[in-house]
């Protein structure tokens, strides 16, 4: 029963919270760039407006892909909040990501194509990192279940500090924040336009936005697991992490996908191995 309540809560609260976080993100970014910035609720207004627009599509696959992306993202958040299996959450998250790319590739537009291809490279960079983080958590707790994390007596951050950095790296890639806004970014780039988002418009773009909010909540929720012992600790950790993300986003320029792949895999492997050795030594 509590699980169903939690599921409904996650389903309803996550996108709203995600929208607010995005709004705050935009304000802080504006402040860092000496601008005034939009109201905090602006992302919500945008999406509501988009939802009211008439659908325009290159082909029907895009509509299908937008829906499935949303379903996959929402489902993965529900699974996280109901304390399910970390690896399962990851795989369900992949469903959404795969369909987003399939939708982009389903249009012959070069911008959409290049965005889809680059998004695949982003996935190639962050997916192993996420699995490594989950595997390390499983090494520590002996189980892939989210619920097992909450049975720990002290925050995971003490035992897996380097894995938190790996997670941060994956987070930057997953949220397409600079320097890894390679497949698409919040603002248009000359050679990319909106990359993987280019061909989605109107209500379908709104769905993609909402799905993205779910994903923001999911990755922040996974960050929160690293301070599972206290609620305040979770909030502080997540807030600090996200603030760091925003600062990184603002002070770095985008890198090429080669640098992203090499650095993500190389750094991820080294940090993981060091952290695991340290865990063994303890």
């Amino acid at each position, binding site marked *: 029963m509590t699980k169903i309540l939690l599921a409904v809560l996650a389903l309803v609260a996550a996108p709203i919270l995600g929208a607010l976080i995005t709004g705050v993100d935009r304000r802080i970014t504006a402040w860092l760039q000496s601008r005034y910035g939009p109201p905090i609720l602006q992302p919500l207004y945008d999406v509501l407006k988009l939802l009211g627009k008439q*659908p325009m599509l290159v082909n029907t696959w895009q*509509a299908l892909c937008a829906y499935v992306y949303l379903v996959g993202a929402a489902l993965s958040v529900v699974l996280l909040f109901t304390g399910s299996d970390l690896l399962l959450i990851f795989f369900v998250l992949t469903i959404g990501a795969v369909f987003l790319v399939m939708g982009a590739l389903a249009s012959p537009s070069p911008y959409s194509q290049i965005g889809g291809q680059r998004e*695949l490279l982003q996935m190639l960079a962050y997916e192993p990192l996420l699995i490594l983080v989950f595997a390390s958590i499983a090494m520590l707790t002996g189980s892939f279940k989210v619920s097992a994390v909450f049975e720990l007596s002290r925050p995971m951050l003490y035992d897996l500090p380097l894995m938190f950095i790996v997670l941060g790296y994956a987070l930057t890639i997953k949220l397409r924040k600079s320097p890894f806004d390679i497949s698409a970014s919040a603002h248009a780039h000359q050679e990319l336009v909106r990359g993987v988002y280019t061909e989605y418009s109107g209500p379908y773009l709104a769905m993609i936005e909402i799905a993205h909010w779910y994903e923001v909540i999911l990755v922040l929720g996974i960050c929160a697991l690293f301070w599972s012992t206290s609620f305040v600790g979770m909030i502080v950790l997540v807030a600090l992490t996200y603030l760091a993300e925003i600062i990184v986003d603002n002070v770095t320029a985008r890198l090429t996908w080669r640098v992203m792949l090499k650095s993500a895999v190389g750094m991820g492997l080294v940090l993981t191995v060091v952290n695991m050795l340290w865990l063994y030594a303890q």
Partner: protein
Amino acid sequence: MLDTLVFVTVLLPFLVAAVLLVLREQNLRKVILVATAGVLILSSLAMLRGGAFIMSPAPLWGSLVTLGDFLILGVVLLVGLKRKNQIIVWLTVAQIVGLIWFDFFMIKDHGSTPAFFADDLSLVMVLVVSIVGSLIAVYGIGYMKEHEEHLHLTTSKQPQFFFFIVLFLGAMNGLVLANNMLWMYFFWECTTLCSFMLIGHDDTEIARKNAERALWMNVLGGTAFLFGVMLLYKVTGSLSLQDILARGPEFAVAGGAILVPMFLLVFAGMTKAAQAPFQSWLTGAMVAPTPVSALLHSSTMVKAGVYIIVRLAPIYAGTYFSNFVALFGGFVFLATACLAAGQSNGKKILAYSTISNLALIIACAGINTPAAITAAILLILFHAISKALMFLCVGAIEQKIGSRDIEDMRGLFARMPRTALVAVIGILTMMLPPFGMLMAKWMAIESAHGQFLLMIMLALGSGVTVLFWCRWAGLMLATPFAKAAPEAQDGTIRGPLYLLAGLAVVLSFFSPLVYNGLVAPVVAMYYKTAPYVLRFGNFESSTGVFLVYPLFILLGLGFFFALRQTRKITAAQAVGPYMCGEQTSVDGKPGFLGPLGQNVTAVSGNYYLEQFFGEAMLSKWINVIALAVLVIMLFGGAL
């Protein structure tokens, strides 16, 4: 009843094959093939209902098997001499001498070992061979007709072709049901010979070359198999697989002696499953007509290799050797997934993905926990269905568009809507939850979580896998908004495509039942515990939980709703692809208005990341490392 079933699944294909060899009447061949497929499917299901059994046919059959052994070895030797291939000749001579010594001087109690035995693992294999294999044979009817029309042959070579295809099915059924290791050796050699003949079927320069390579690699495996069986007999004094399995743990505890024959048999399995450094025979096998590739990659041949490795797993459980098998599997899984990502040839992508998935099965056998063995068996089952489906799709596509390059499949949906959709379903069942392949992969990764190096390789490998499947599925759908023209296709091609696609989805939905009925009992039999508890059809263990039905229902509902919404979209809502405001269309192909008012067609291609995943760059290193692991496996694990 039992006699009949074993007769039908093993011997009947041999007899039907002989009839097909002399029969030149097209329609009759079609009837016989479809009827045989039906009988095979029904009898494999009946055999499944009957459950485990042991059976000894009349002693005469034992002599026939011995005769068959020498017959096959003789044929292989002749081929080796004709092609002047030293490796084949010497390895075959070694086998002949070894077999004479073994058959006539070493074995004391001829005939006392039951020839056949089946537990749930064998029965699952019989199902895979009989159902998937038969569907591929049926598909072959329509495919070969078109294939030969295309080649303008004066005399049809179909009698030979179907002779070996059907023979192959019988040999595979025999192999997985064999209890007597010598019988298994006979069927093992049968599959080697059949695959050689089928790869070389088109008799082109490249076909002959690749068939020869397949033959020498598999003869090497066959030699390892024979000497493995001889050593096994020396250590255990038995030829009965069931007996050896039952007493396996005591041998493993008693000392390393049994690990040497185990290494040889596992090595034989690895060559048959085309693991690095022997992957080139399977990638070369794609020169054969598509039904052959489908058969080799899904239900027969390579599955025989992993079958023997999984079958023997309880004997080497808990040894260093087992750990090395796991590491080897993990490495090849990652390495060949990378190779697949660097390819644009559809059949080659499928080939490398097969090798990669087989390596995952081998890794599971090496991890050797109840959960890992469950994963291995489920992978064998689901991979056979989805991979057969993918090959048959590529075959149908190739006959229509004249290319197997995935770049040429852009917008395939406009030309072949049904086949493209079936192919997309096939791809989704390969890489996404809640389908069976992914569930098995989940089990594999979770059961590897204690071994971190292995874990890292599995993590990287799964990331790469998503890359090459996803872009393939996406680009097939790149079409302008229009109603696709209906597609004409032979019933013998369309039928197997639909059946396999349906099977891939439906069987995934019933995976809890499959697990309960087929996998859990056999795992519990050899490992004393069942790895997962099923609660409301969800897989649960102390390390994790996989929700089958909630995922199926929620994702299914979402998908259904999305489909309904997309139906409502009208042509009025369709726009052309975004070309920065300069879009034009030439002959229905989207493009943009370039400099000087020229129309430029928009062209795009995939990233193949040659500098990371190029075959020329990676293959050499992969082979060196795989060989090194094999050597360490022998000296560090087995000796």
